[in-house]
């Protein structure tokens, strides 16, 4: 049987600020190397597909102006997106995508951006921007701890309600709000994070986890993935983990430099 997964890439051109399309490349390659096909549908402004027809949805980040466009466009998409979340479609949401899946994002100036409320989280702009390497420890299943590494670049502070768990515990970096020691959110098969980098290429175990969830959505059963040889992904992961631990405690990777005083 030819297996394949259906990926919906939400606002693929609108929200593509920091190389986040690398997440799609990682999913495609790691599927392809195992003989799993990927059908990718790009979803733009004014388009209202049935989101429950996808096995995996990507919803990436953008700057405030792009986020404003997305927020104003989400209304007619919201019901179908919430239905997809409730039917266990896998979702990876990054930065603005994360914030817009929640109740709202309140920027430091101007009116707030309304989210679709698929997750019980809300976000408010904070005084400092977290711009640094970040490392997180995840425990999706009891006893299986794994690290996630990336680069965060956000001033939003996100707070979770009780139905939503964190993606992981912050080892180094700001994470959700710099206060509660958590980063990101998990609700059903929705995985939210502030991590760019992009997040998936350097965290192959997380990429594979999403592919497994997408396969389960499509075929209704849990399947083990054929293991791939460890390569530059694992080494890049280790390098990023060391960088994050080294810059622990700093808000920005590049501290204020004298010529900008």
């Amino acid at each position: 049987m030819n297996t394949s997964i259906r990926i919906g890439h939400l606002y693929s051109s609108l929200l593509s600020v920091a190389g986040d399309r690398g997440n799609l490349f990682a999913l495609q390659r790691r599927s392809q190397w195992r003989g799993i096909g990927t059908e990718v549908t790009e979803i733009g402004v004014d388009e209202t597909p049935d989101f429950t027809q996808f096995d995996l949805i990507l919803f990436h980040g953008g700057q405030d102006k792009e986020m404003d466009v997305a927020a104003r466009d989400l209304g007619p998409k919201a019901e179908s997106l919430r239905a997809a979340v409730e039917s266990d479609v896998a979702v990876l949401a990054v930065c603005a995508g994360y914030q817009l899946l929640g109740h709202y994002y309140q920027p430091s100036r101007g009116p707030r951006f309304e989210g679709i409320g698929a997750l019980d989280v809300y976000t408010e702009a904070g005084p400092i921007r977290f711009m640094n390497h970040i490392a997180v420890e995840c425990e999706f299943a009891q006893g299986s701890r794994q690290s996630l590494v990336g680069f965060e670049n956000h001033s939003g502070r996100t707070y979770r309600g009780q139905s939503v768990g964190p993606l992981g515990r912050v080892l180094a970096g700001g994470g959700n709000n710099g206060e509660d020691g958590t980063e990101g959110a998990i609700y059903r098969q929705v995985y939210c994070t502030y991590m760019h980098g992009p997040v998936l290429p350097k965290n192959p175990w997380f990429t594979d986890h999403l592919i497994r969830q997408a396969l389960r959505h499509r075929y209704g059963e849990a399947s083990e993935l054929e293991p791939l040889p460890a390569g530059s992904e694992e080494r890049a992961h280790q390098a990023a983990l060391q960088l994050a631990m080294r810059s622990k405690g700093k808000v920005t990777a590049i501290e204020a430099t004298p010529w900008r005083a």
Partner: protein
Amino acid sequence: MGTMKQAMGPIASARLTLALSSGKLAGRTARALRMGGGTSLPGMVARRIDPLVLRKVIGRTRAAKVIVTGSNGKTTTCRMLAAIAAAGGKGVVQNRTGSNLLQGVTTVAVAGANLRGEMRADLLLFEVDEATVAAAAAEIQPDMILVTNLFRDQLDRYGELYSVAGALERSIRALPETATAILNGDDPMVASFAADASRWLLFGLRTAEVGTAVPEHAADTVRCVRCQHDLDYAKVYISHLGDFRCPNCGYARQPLGVAVTGVRLGLEGTGVTLQTPYGELRFDLGLPGLHNVYNAAAAVAAAQALGLPAEGIPAAMSSLRPAFGRLEPIAAGDRQVLLSFVKNPISYNTTLRTILQRPGPKAILAAESNTVVDGEDFAWLWDVDLEEVAPLIPWMVASGSKAEEVAMRYKYAGVSEDRIEVIPGLAPALDAALARTPPGETLYILASYTPTRELRKIMETRGWVRPFWQE
């Protein structure tokens, strides 16, 4: 600024002299010790001693002061403008080596002035980093600001594109009425700064000979700067640069003061025809690539606004050769190296397109390092369109402190891992790459600023290329 000369007392003058002499000494010492070109050290030392050194020297000169800024093409545009001015018999003082933060800009003053802070020059040309432009413009009080373009560049250093744009807009608004803004009319955001200037001149392309109908993936400003609606393009030349129009609010490209109406792209150079206030100009530009056509249009527009004679332009433009690490051909024994400084998706893509015009397989040395200049976040590598070149890469070497990340990016673009050698050290990486390059063939080096500089330094010590401060 004219009052500073009278206002400066003996202590202020002594401090200036000490700052200038110490800065000059630091530059000489750095060169003598072969520490590098001394392109930012003199300015840094002088500013420590006298924070007003740049303001004081600027206040004592009658030269026209020009700031060139923007994401891409600053260095080349400055070289072009300097060549045109020199051809017109003007004395030019400039920072020529891509050292464009405030220390590098101050180095221009330190190197160009005598110990009393006087400078013999008709034109002071400052290449300024787009995030430093507000601070630099306040000290320089320029007669002209030229903005080449604005692309997403090192997001982790500057926050977001729009905040850089905001700082530029404020700098242009703060210009005196007599100053001129030279703006890229094909860049929807840069062109919008014309509204903040009392005098401006737009440059751009107006030709069907090059360009496409749809922006490439990495394009930055494809939405209207006024109403955020998606822009329509009659023609896209590079990224988001082109003949744009907003179907919602009507914001559109304005008539161009300097328009490129003919382009003939070659491997080593480019035939260019321009319509300008001088009349029609034709020349053979000694640099390849469409991005250099934009740089040429920018330089001609600035020359025109400065009142430089047009007669020298064709000879000046044809005499140009690639700058430090800008698709710079270097003979490495019986192998050829093409050294390319790439710093963001657009410059990477532009370089790849030029490389793809050349026949044959593409042996590549790709290097990235995390430094203050090159940033910490290399996510932008995923916005580079490597997929087209990947099947043409027989083998490659990934190098720099980010070697693993570079290797991973090329792997996911389709270069299988057994064709990628990871060698973080730049010298051994260069040796390994050259050893695998057959005699007579070309090694393409694609690297960000710091590794480009270091690789070039290695090739300087081997006598393959002259140190860049001598050029």
